[in-house]
C-alpha cells in the first residue's frame, strides 16, 4: 500500500514537473519533449488504473504520433527559438491567476471529498477489466454511433488539411510555397 503511494507521488511529481517544464522553457522543442515525458508518465498512471490498452494507445498515438507531428512541424518551420517567451498581455495575467486559483481550490476540495475518498473496489486487478477485448465489445455495441462519427470526423479533418496546405495546381504556385522552393 505505501509502496504504491510512493510510486504515485514520485510519478505525480515528474508529471507536474514535466508540465511546468513545457510551460516555462523558451525553446519549443524542449516544450514538446517535456510534454512527451508528461504523456509517458500519464500512460503509466493508466497502467496503475487498470487501463493497459488505453496506456498503449496513449504511448503510440499521443506520445508517438501526435508529439512527433508537433516536433516535425516545429523543425520544419524552424520555429523553436521564441523571441519573448513569457510576455503576458495585461488583462490576461489577472485572469490566469483567478482561473488557476479557482481550479487549484477545486483540486484541494477534491482531495478532501468524502464521497470518493474511500478506496474503491479493486476492479483493476480483474483480468478482463480494461482488456482490448472488453473495450472492443463495448465500443462496437454501445458506443457504435460515436465510433462511426469519429470516422467522419477524421475524414473531414483530412480533407481540411489538404485544403489548407495543398498547392493550388491550377494556379501553379501559392505564395509561401513558391518562396520556400526558391530559397
Amino acid at each position, binding site marked *: 500500500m505505501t509502496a504504491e503511494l510512493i510510486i504515485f507521488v514520485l510519478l505525480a511529481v515528474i508529471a507536474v514537473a514535466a508540465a511546468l517544464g513545457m510551460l516555462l522553457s523558451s525553446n519549443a522543442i524542449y516544450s514538446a519533449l517535456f510534454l512527451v515525458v508528461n504523456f509517458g508518465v500519464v500512460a503509466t498512471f493508466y497502467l496503475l488504473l487498470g487501463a493497459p490498452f488505453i496506456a498503449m494507445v496513449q504511448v503510440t498515438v499521443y506520445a508517438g504520433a501526435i508529439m512527433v507531428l508537433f516536433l516535425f512541424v516545429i523543425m520544419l518551420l524552424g520555429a523553436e527559438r521564441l523571441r519573448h517567451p513569457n510576455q503576458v498581455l495585461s488583462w490576461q495575467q489577472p485572469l490566469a491567476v483567478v482561473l488557476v486559483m479557482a481550479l487549484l481550490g477545486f483540486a484541494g476540495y477534491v482531495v478532501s471529498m468524502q464521497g470518493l475518498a474511500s478506496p474503491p473496489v479493486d476492479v483493476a486487478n480483474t483480468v478482463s477489466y480494461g482488456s482490448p477485448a472488453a473495450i472492443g465489445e463495448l465500443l462496437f455495441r454501445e458506443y*457504435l454511433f460515436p465510433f462511426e462519427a469519429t470516422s467522419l470526423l477524421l475524414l473531414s479533418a483530412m480533407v481540411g488539411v489538404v485544403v489548407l496546405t495543398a498547392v493550388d495546381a491550377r494556379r501553379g504556385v501559392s505564395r509561401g510555397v513558391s518562396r520556400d522552393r526558391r530559397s
Partner: protein
Amino acid sequence: MTISNLNLVGTLPLLFLSAWACGLLLVDLWIPGDRKHMTGWMALSGFAITFFWVSSNLGQREEAFGGMLAIDGFSNLLHLVFLGSGILATLLALNYLKQHDIERGEFYPLMLFSVVGMMIMSMAKDLIVVFLALEMLSIPLYVLVGFARTRADSEESALKYFLLGAFSSAFQVYGIALIYGATQATGFAAIGDAVAISGASPLLLAGIGLMLVGLAFKVSAVPLHMWTPDVYQGAPSVVTGFMSVGAKAAGFAAIVRIFFSAFHSLAADWAPVIVLFAVLSTVIGNVAAISQTSIKRMLAFSSIAHAGYVFVAIVPGGYGALSDFAASAVIFYLAAYGLTNIGAWSVVIAVDHADGMGSDISNYAGLARRSPGLAAAMTLFMLSLTGLPPTMGFVAKFYVFRAALAAGYTWLVVVGVVTVLISAYYYLRVIVVMWMNSGDGQVVTPRALNFTVGVTAAATLVLGLLPGPLMAIVESSVRGLF
C-alpha cells in the same frame, strides 16, 4: 451480440447526407477545375433532398443507436434550420467563390460535413455525442474560415477561431469528465435520474460550468465572445453567414437538450448563470455594435446580442410546464434569426468587393437609388434584426419575452426591451444611410444571390405577418418533449 434499438431507418436522412458528402468528395475528383460550381449544385441537391425528407416527417418520436440519438420534433425542426442555412449559403457560394478566386471543390463537402455535425448535435442524447458533434461541426468550419488563402486575414482569423475553439472544447471535455464522475453516466436520461436522486454536488456543478464554457463559446455569448468580430470579419462572407446561423443554432440545440432533460431538476442552480449570459450578451453586444463602422463587425456584435436573446428564452426552461414553451421559443427565434441573418449577409456579399472595399456602413450610401430591391430587402432585414413589426424578428422577440414573462422574469424582459431600443440605433442607421445619403458604389448581384435575398426577405415578411401556422407546427412538434 446485436445492438438493441439500432433504428437505422429513423436516422436515414442523416446517413444519407453523410454518404452524399463522402460521395461528393469522390465525384469532385472528376469535375474539371473550371467547373467546380457543379459540385456546388450537387451539394445543393443533397441539402434539398434531405430538407424535404426531414420536413415530410416532422412529428417523429424515436430513438436510435441504443438511445444515443433522439429523433423528434425538436431535432427535426432544427435540422430544417441547419439544412436551410446550408442551402442558402451554398447558393451564395456558387458565385462568391469564383468572384473571390478561391473556388475549390472541397468547399462543398466540408460544408456538408459541418451540417452533419450540426444535425447530430441537435439529436445527441449523450455527452460524448455532444462533444463529437461539436468537433464535427467545428473542424470543417475552422478550415472554411481559412478558405480564402489569398487573404492573410482569413488565415489569421481561422487560427484565432481554431485556438480559442480548441481551448474551449478542452474545458468542455473536462466538464464532461467531472459530470461523469459525479453521476456515473454520460447519457442524458441516466444523468437526469442520478441528479434527481443525489442533487447537486460541487463536483457536478463544476462540471456543468466547465461544459457550459465550451457551448457558450460556440454560440458566442459574452464573456466568451472575443473571437466573434475578428472571425466574422476575416472569414469569407458566405462562411460567416453560414456559421453565424448554423453553429449558433447547434450550440443552443445542445444547451436546450442538456439543461432541459439532464439537468432539469437543477434549474435553480443553472438559471442564474443563463440569466447572466443573457444580460451580458444583450447589453455588451448591442452597446459595442453602436460604435462599429464596418458592417461585418456590426453584424458580429449583433450576433452576440442575439445569442443573449436566445438565452432569455432558455431561462424559463427550468420551470416545469414552461420548458416546452421555452424550447419552441428557442426554435422560432433561431429560425427567424437564421433567415434574417443569412439575408443580411447576402446583401453584404453583394456590396462587398473582392479587393476588400465595400464593407463599411458608409458604402451603403445611395444603395436605394442604385439597387432599390436590395435596399428594400436590407431594410426589412434590419427591421427584423431590431425586432420591429411587420417582420419575423418581431414575432420571435415577442415569443421569447412572453416565455420569460410567464416564468416571472419581468426585469429580464425590461432589460431585453431596453437593449432592443439601443440596437434600433445602429440597425436603423444602416437604413438611413441607404435611403437618405447619396453615394456611388457598385453592387454585384448574380441570379443566385438575388434568389437568396428574395427568398429570405419574403419569408421574413410573410412569417412576420402570418406567424400562426409555423408557430402551431413548432409547438405541436415540441409538445411533451422536455
